[in-house]
């Protein structure tokens, strides 16, 4: 494989901090975010020649966005594979930059899941605003009352059965992520919680409690990715793309091995491309739609053996100061989860690698290499996984 290390860098990020935006359009949030992310990079409209986006609510999102922005991208990509789409976008932007097609790409997303009253987790799984496609598995799922929470709950139940994982261990993940949210003034929920708080919250779909589930917010943001030449002229030191991997999982034609997630397939190319191992990762942004998502992803990324995730996440390992700090912005479990969350993983990893929080408890000490893993779709049925490894010089 071609060595793509440092062939592109994240040079600008902006998280639209709104968690509730009833008076804005999705496109407006994206437009505002792009302006701010370019400011962060020290670039402007004329520098951007690639456009990457995904949407939960509109088809042809790349077309609509290019029109709204009055932009003529040389490369447009609206790969939409669920919440982890943005890790895919970064990998695709890297390829396009390496190929010399573009020099600077914007990845952007927004949604109004909260003000729109979208039942992201507790409506039917195909109720994401897209029309029913047939023949599709929807006709063999919807009629049984599948929900997103229900699918993840079934995965958790099987993990409990097969490996002895406990609700207390899942709760440890929510506790660690909330601890990080307590340090993020923008997070939706900032009060520290205990394992008992999680277990006392109501059961949505057994064995998952309310606090095992992510929040629902509005929001969005933008990430600017650029060639090494452009990156060296930007305001911040480059956050290099070191390795990427992408996968879709759980096909099997009815013989799905649901105990593994797409991370098992996507992590190999990412680590091999980056030339690093799990032991080199200083912090990780792990898609946390649910606590079980984090546990299975950590196992399949190779941070521990399959089935040992419950023990791995216990004892504060996932907190800053622990062995593998994750989701230092408060994650989807506590900070924000506007329908799809993968873009925020890239932003927080970039902040940490810039040492933006130096001198505060939120900074992962001496952070040099970070891993982002986005999960899209739903574990238990069709889902995607995108792994990205980022590093600073």
């Amino acid at each position, binding site marked *: 494989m071609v060595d793509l290390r440092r062939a592109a860098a994240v040079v600008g990020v902006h998280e639209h901090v709104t968690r509730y935006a009833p008076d804005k359009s999705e496109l407006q949030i994206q437009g505002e975010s792009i302006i701010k992310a370019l400011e962060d990079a020290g670039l402007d409209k004329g520098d951007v020649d690639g456009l990457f986006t995904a949407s939960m609510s509109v088809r042809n999102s790349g077309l609509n966005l290019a029109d709204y922005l009055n932009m003529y991208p040389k490369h447009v990509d609206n790969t939409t594979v669920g919440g982890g789409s943005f890790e895919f976008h970064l990998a695709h932007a890297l390829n396009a930059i390496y190929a010399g097609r573009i020099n600077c790409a914007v990845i952007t997303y927004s949604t109004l899941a909260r003000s729109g009253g979208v*039942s992201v987790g*507790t*409506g*039917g799984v195909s*109720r994401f605003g897209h029309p*029913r496609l*047939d*023949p599709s*598995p*929807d*006709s*063999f*799922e*919807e*009629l*049984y*009352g*599948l*929900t997103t*929470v*229900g699918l993840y*709950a*079934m*995965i958790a*139940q*099987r993990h409990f*059965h097969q490996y002895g994982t406990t609700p207390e261990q899942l709760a440890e993940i929510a506790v660690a992520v909330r601890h990080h949210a307590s340090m993020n003034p923008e997070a939706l929920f900032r009060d520290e919680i205990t394992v008992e708080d999680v277990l006392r919250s*109501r*059961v*949505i*779909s*057994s*064995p*998952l409690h309310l606090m095992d589930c992510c929040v629902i917010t509005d929001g969005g943001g933008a990430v600017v990715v650029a060639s090494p030449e452009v990156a060296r002229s930007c305001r911040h030191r480059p956050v290099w793309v070191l390795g990427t991997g992408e996968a879709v999982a759980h*096909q099997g*034609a*009815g*013989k*799905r091995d*649901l105990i593994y997630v797409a991370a098992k397939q996507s992590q190999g190319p990412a680590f091999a491309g980056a030339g690093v191992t799990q032991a080199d990762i200083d912090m990780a942004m792990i898609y946390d739609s649910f606590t079980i998502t984090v546990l299975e992803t950590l196992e399949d990324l190779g941070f521990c053996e399959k089935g040992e995730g419950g023990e791995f996440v216990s004892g504060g390992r996932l907190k800053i100061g622990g062995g593998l700090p994750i989701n230092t912005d408060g994650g989807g479990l506590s900070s924000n989860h506007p329908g799809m969350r993968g873009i925020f993983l890239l932003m927080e990893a970039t902040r940490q690698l810039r040492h933006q929080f130096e001198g505060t408890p939120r900074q992962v000490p001496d952070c040099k290499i970070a891993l982002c893993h986005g999960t899209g779709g739903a574990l*238990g049925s069709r889902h995607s996984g995108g792994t990205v490894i980022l590093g600073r010089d």
Partner: protein
Amino acid sequence: MPDWNKPLPTVVGETRAYWDACRRGQLLIQHCGQCGEYQFYPRGICAHCWTENPGWVAASGKGTVWTYTVTYQNRTPGFDQGPYVLALVELEEGVRMFSNIVECDPREVSIGMAVEVTFQRATDQISVPYFKPAG
């Protein structure tokens, strides 16, 4: 016929045989004459060996609960009135399908539990396969 307010499947060419059989109280699954593999959900090609026109066989209708969840919150009509059991059932033939476990207390459901198919008539065209504890 009682009012059916749950979602209904869309019947298309490649799934019609499945739903026609359900209406007769029979669970059909696809079995490929080329590679000998079973598949679920039904589709117009064998997804294992990529040949066309996989054949149909009657499943025994018996299986076990591979995993399940008791769902308390779902805004979908028909599922918004109290808990129900959503399960992934592994059929004797080896394929797994989503269904609900019915005719038992949700607290009695467990992984590995033996179940068998039962049908409920939704409309004149559609009967839906569910699973109940094996008798």
